[in-house]
């Protein structure tokens, strides 16, 4: 099982005001809020953590059949190394492994239940208006769509 999540940073800027009172507290653990407040680029950190949670939730949801909105129960840890941002997201007794790609226009995270699987995931990202209409026929393992971007993983 695979997870993936893309955040269109231009859209996120106008769609969500994470500086709103109590906003971060509803979504992020104390440790995650500390990562945001100490980050050089807090906007980037907010959406990085968010995409990690969303990509892991997509696996968790399919695996357990549980559908809920409990972002704070997904605990992110980030292990930065060079240009790749790897991390883990744990929920209940499960841990998912993530790898994120931060670009100027978007942040994209892939997730897998086994660390070794991360390197085997194939990613295709389309920017509108170039979204293929028939992408479902290619049987992607997970689909994420936000703003201009459509991200598929196989």
């Amino acid at each position, binding site marked *: 099982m695979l997870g993936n999540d893309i955040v269109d940073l231009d859209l*996120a800027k106008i*769609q*969500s*005001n994470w500086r*709103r*009172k*109590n*906003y971060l507290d*509803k*979504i992020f653990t104390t440790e995650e809020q500390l990562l945001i407040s100490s980050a050089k680029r807090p906007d980037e950190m907010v959406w990085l953590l*968010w995409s990690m949670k*969303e990509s892991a939730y997509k696996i968790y949801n399919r695996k357990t059949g549980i*559908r*809920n*909105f*409990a*972002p*704070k*129960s997904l605990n992110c840890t980030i292990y930065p190394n060079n240009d790749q941002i790897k991390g883990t997201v744990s929920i209940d007794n499960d841990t998912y492994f993530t790898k994120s790609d931060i670009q100027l226009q978007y942040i994209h995270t892939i997730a897998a239940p086994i660390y070794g699987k991360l390197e085997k995931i194939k990613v295709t990202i389309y920017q509108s208006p170039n979204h293929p209409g028939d992408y479902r026929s290619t049987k992607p393992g997970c689909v994420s769509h*936000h703003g201009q971007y459509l991200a598929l993983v196989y």
Partner: protein
Amino acid sequence: MNKEEIIEALKTIVEPYSEEVSAIANIDENTDFINDLKINSANLVDIVLDIEEKFNIEIDNDSMAKMLTVKATTEIIAQKLEANAG
């Protein structure tokens, strides 16, 4: 506040976060915020905060976890209002 009044107030709250005009117009208990109204999950947090402000209640994490449909959300709001009144 009865159930219909809560749903009406909820409709006003969720409207700015959805582009699904007809789904908003036909909002009822069975409406799902993500599947029907196509609300971005990051905006669900805004909806929860708007509900807290509008109804002057506090939504704990366990309650928030269930707030994916109008039905569940209406029930939670009614419970919290009742607890406040008691």
